[in-house]
């Protein structure tokens, strides 16, 4: 057997199901590859070697005993360290969760493990998923496998870099304002943010609860569909989990993209997309037109206000969600810190990094007496306007297309001193979270040797149209098959 490293999830499942490879062999090969590539990439906070091998052997035993191979049998998986696995540390890239071991497993992880996936590591991330570069991790920055001097994007930068570096064919991330799609674009992999409510948030550490959504990253749309089949569906333990039954996404891909209409918000694109990145986007549109899709112009007039709206809504929700880190129930507590109030303040000052504090201060401000109406409430109203923009656009098209990011990956340190510049990186991704709609990013070529992404946005619960477009695009192009230098 040749090495399973670099094989797709679909292919690994086939190898395991046919007996050509054991789950243990697949896991061991990937763990060895992690050990070899991790010094260059720093994608993981914790490799899970022993646990992975034990679980792989247990699945091998079951298969040997005649159990039918589950849909992700033996498929190595990397999990962003914002999702709980019972008994293992969850750090969220933060010092404030030091020593915390959750007593339960996130539904998203449990669903994939029940489908046979083998978790090989937990991935680095911006602290509490706040950032667009993974430089806000309290532990280390992750590097872009295509150029170690550049960021992998964020906040799921560890997950995207791990998939790009072939540490696993599949990873889980979370996306509050682009945190799956933007790093997927900058690392040259596929990332799906499902419709809000499609995937359970039980066991996902909350950042902004009305925006957060868990989703998969992989190298092909086929693999993303395979994982989405196992991942999506109602969970009674998450009251925001949608009742809509999830379709068979892999089956939907067979339909082909013919007849779908692609809407392009031309006037919005005029705002500051780097020339070559825009050229790759235009080439991708031409390819899709060649595949039988019709491209039409659509107006999304309120999108220029999306960043402002997002950073008021998301930080307001974060300031509330992160009130729970107070040194009482879990994680860090500063030693000998006087009375209760002093202990709260000092624990939070010591445990949170600068970006998290900045967002707590901004969000608390937006919610505070005297400013609530002008900032938080007004942002919520603009959110309605943005959602209505999409509802109107989807009368004229089935999928909205934009570049995923305005530029390819920037250099480490380039934007760390200027938070507003970092926020503007999310211009094309935040609208989907505000509107609650699904978004897919897929590689559409290189700019100066660095990958950039095509973003497709769809109607609520219509991931299938995005995946159909994406799969058709990948059948006609080979951008997703390019490999970054791994040594």
């Amino acid at each position, binding site marked *: 057997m040749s090495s399973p490293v670099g094989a797709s999830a679909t292919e690994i499942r086939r190898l395991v199901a046919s007996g050509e490879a054991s789950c243990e062999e697949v896991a061991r090969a990937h763990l060895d590859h992690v050990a070899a590539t991790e010094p260059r990439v720093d994608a993981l906070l914790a490799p899970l070697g022993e646990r992975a091998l034990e679980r792989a052997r247990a699945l091998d035993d079951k298969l040997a005993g005649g159990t039918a191979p589950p849909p992700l049998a033996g498929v190595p998986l990397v999990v962003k360290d914002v999702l709980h696995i019972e008994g293992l540390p969850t750090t969220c890239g933060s010092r404030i969760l030091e020593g915390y071991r959750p007593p339960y497993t996130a539904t998203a992880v449990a669903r994939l493990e029940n489908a046979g996936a083998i978790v090989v590591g937990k991935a680095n991330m911006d602290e509490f998923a706040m950032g667009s570069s993974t430089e806000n991790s309290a532990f280390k920055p992750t590097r872009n496998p295509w150029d170690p001097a550049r960021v992998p994007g964020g906040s799921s930068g560890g997950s995207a870099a791990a998939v790009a570096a072939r540490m696993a064919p599949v990873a889980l991330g979370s996306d509050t304002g682009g945190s799956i799609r933007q790093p997927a674009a900058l690392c040259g992999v596929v990332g799906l943010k499902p419709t809000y409510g499609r995937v359970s948030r039980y066991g996902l550490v909350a950042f902004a609860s009305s925006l957060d959504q868990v989703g998969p990253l992989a190298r092909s749309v086929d693999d993303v569909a395979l994982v989405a089949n196992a991942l999506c569906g109602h969970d009674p333990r998450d009251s925001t989990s949608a009742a809509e039954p999830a379709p068979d996404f892999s089956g939907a891909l067979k339909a082909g993209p013919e007849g779908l209409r692609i809407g392009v918000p031309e006037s919005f694109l005029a705002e500051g997309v780097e020339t070559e990145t825009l050229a790759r986007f235009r080439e991708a549109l031409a390819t899709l037109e060649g595949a039988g899709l019709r491209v039409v112009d659509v107006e999304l007039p309120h999108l220029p206000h999306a960043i402002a*709206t997002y950073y*008021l809504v998301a930080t307001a929700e974060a300031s509330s969600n992160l009130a729970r880190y107070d040194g009482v129930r*879990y994680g860090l507590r500063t030693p000998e810190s006087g009375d209760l109030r002093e202990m709260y303040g000092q624990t939070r000052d010591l445990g949170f990094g600068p970006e998290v504090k900045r967002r707590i201060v*901004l969000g608390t*401000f937006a919610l505070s007496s005297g400013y609530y109406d002008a900032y938080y409430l007004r942002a919520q109203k603009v959110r309605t306007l943005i959602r209505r923009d999409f509802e109107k656009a989807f009368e004229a098209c089935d999928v909205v297309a934009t570049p995923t990011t305005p530029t390819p990956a920037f250099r480490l340190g380039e934007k760390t001193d200027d938070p507003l510049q970092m926020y503007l990186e999310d211009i094309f991704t935040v609208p989907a979270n505000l509107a*609650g709609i699904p978004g897919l990013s897929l590689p559409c070529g290189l700019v100066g040797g660095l990958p950039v992404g095509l973003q497709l946005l769809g109607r609520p619960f219509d991931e299938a149209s995005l995946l159909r477009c994406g799969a058709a695009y990948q059948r006609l192009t080979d951008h997703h098959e390019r490999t970054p230098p791994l040594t």
Partner: protein
Amino acid sequence: MARVTVETVDHVARLAHLSLTEEERETFARQLDQILAYAESIQELDTGDVPPMSHALAGGRFRADVPHEGLDREALLASAPDSAEGLFRVPRVIGG
């Protein structure tokens, strides 16, 4: 609209139970002022009769009110910085 001063940051940090260093107070005041100046664009929009959107899903749904086993108390306390007699222990709350 709002011009953020160090005093604003101090007020908000108190509300959020954050002790900030001198340097953080000044940096945050400057950066938040920039961010809010950028966010002023939404003040120009006519939002008169637009309802606020707090969530992407319309309406909440509740599960059936059936008792079920919760998480194990000892397992939950195991991650606490300090606990005693099945409870979280905290520094003194009043006086001293």
